[in-house]
């Protein structure tokens, strides 16, 4: 980890980050959230981020749209593939959105020492992700989707879908 990352992650008080993002983007970040000060992170006006949420964007672009609601205790991590969250989406508490994965094709090397991969994640507008869901790398969630609580999204979902389960599967098309 280079010096710049260390400063961004650990040496800027969270209350200062809250004020900077409020002034710069007009969004409300809880002082108890852990949001990195990074040029890769863009947050739309009116977006709210709850306490104990960790947002990690020093390794890739993370775009959060306008009027997005991110609940308490979430983890959102962007890597080289980037992560996008569309306008008016709701991310419920304890949701994990992880924009990278690890290679595991060599049994002689510990997974943590193998390369990371990142295809990116795109979450459309007006998407509601229920409590405790996980959205994995490479997934695209269409506009107006609803993901039921505790689902694991491993495949892309078309617009207007209500999905449930591990792996999340479509159970209904909104109309």
């Amino acid at each position, binding site marked *: 980890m280079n010096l710049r990352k260390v400063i961004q992650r650990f040496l800027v008080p969270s209350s200062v980050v809250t004020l900077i993002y409020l002034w710069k983007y007009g969004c409300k970040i809880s002082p108890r959230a852990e949001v990195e000060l990074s040029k890769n992170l863009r947050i739309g006006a009116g977006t709210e981020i709850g306490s104990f949420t960790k947002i990690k964007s020093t390794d890739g672009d993370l775009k959060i749209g306008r009027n997005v609601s991110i609940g308490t205790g979430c983890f959102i991590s962007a890597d080289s593939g980037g992560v996008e969250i569309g306008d008016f989406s709701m991310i419920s508490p304890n949701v994990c959105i992880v924009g990278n994965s690890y290679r595991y094709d060599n049994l002689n090397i510990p997974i943590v020492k193998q390369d990371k991969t990142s295809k990116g994640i795109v979450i459309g507008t007006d998407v509601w992700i229920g409590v405790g869901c996980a959205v994995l790398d490479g997934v695209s969630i269409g506009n107006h989707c609803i993901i*039921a609580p505790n689902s694991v999204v491993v495949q892309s979902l078309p617009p207007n879908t*209500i999905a*449930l389960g591990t792996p999340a599967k*479509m*159970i*209904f*098309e909104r*109309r």
Partner: protein
Amino acid sequence: MNKGLVELVADVMGLEESEVTGSLSREVDTCWDSLSHLRLITAIEEQYSVRLTMDEIQSMVTLDDVDRILSQYLGAT
């Protein structure tokens, strides 16, 4: 009641076919929760190649309601 519908409901809600009656209600019976309701609608649409409206979906409170609305579609074809 439509035999195919009874089989569908039993499958979606994890019931024995003998437990599936017209009085089964999503306001009373815990096996018929909001997600089961959506799964049931999707199963009906796939099985009978129909497309229900939101008003119809919301008005399906008992299995008799489901049967009545479905009969309207099947009678029209």
